[in-house]
């Protein structure tokens, strides 16, 4: 318990060991989810580098594409992809738990909500891929 300046009552500040998030499975999965957000930001950085290369002309751009094909870089992207997919799947799962969807009087089961989110994701991915590659 500690009392902050100007507070009328002491604020309860729980104390826990630093490794609390390693203790049980759900805690570990929560921590993993938090950590995977770093890979999302890493991709933002890589996309920014891509745009820099595009803005610096043909040679810089083609050099960047060659860099993207290096095995080490592909390995980094593979790690990012796994992390981002984990982040996505856990987000769908938690959304289905938080957001109760009702149709009339019936509550839509969680599995259906999750399936709907996955379906939306597949659709969004197909649209992005179409514009990215073929359009």
């Amino acid at each position, binding site marked *: 318990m500690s009392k902050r300046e100007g507070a009328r009552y002491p604020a309860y500040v729980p104390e826990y060991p630093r490794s609390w998030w390693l203790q049980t499975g759900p805690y570990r999965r929560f921590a993993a989810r*938090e950590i995977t*957000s770093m890979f999302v930001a890493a991709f933002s950085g890589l*996309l*920014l580098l891509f*745009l820099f290369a*595009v803005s610096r002309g043909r040679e810089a751009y083609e050099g960047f594409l060659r860099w993207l094909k290096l095995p080490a870089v*592909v390995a980094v992207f593979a790690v990012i992809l796994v992390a981002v997919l984990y982040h996505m799947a856990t987000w769908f799962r938690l959304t289905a738990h938080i957001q109760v969807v009702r149709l009339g009087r019936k509550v839509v089961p969680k599995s259906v909500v999750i399936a709907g989110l996955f379906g939306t994701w597949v659709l969004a991915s197909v649209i992005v891929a179409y514009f990215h*590659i073929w359009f």
Partner: protein
Amino acid sequence: MSLGDILDESDAREVKRRARGAGPSREDRLRRLLRPEPVFWGLFSAGGFVAAFLVPIHVAILGIALAAGWLPSRALSYERVQHLVHLPLVKLYLWGLIALPLYHWAHRFRFAIYHQFGILRWKRFIAVACYGTSIAGTAISAWVLLRI
């Protein structure tokens, strides 16, 4: 008023008592007006949305499919990419695709430092560093996209 001043109260555990008598000071009113949590939470959840629905396919295309040779050679040719990044709608899309996930990261990373690693010192510095990075990323991506 700095970004740190604005962020200081955004993870408050208690509501501060208002001063009796005189109404809220100018500083207080400004602070309330600039309350950052709704804005940063909005950007955070928008970033989560982008990160879940849009980022995986982009990672797969740029990071894996290109190197594996699954793409038609035209797909990422310089001419085509140049053409695409000059379209205003594509610029807007790329801006969102880069900037919004940064706010998602900033929020998560800020609270991962507090809650996971239990580092409660330098709170203001950590908050400013996290959101400052995303704001900088937003500005840099806007600048690159406008200059391209």
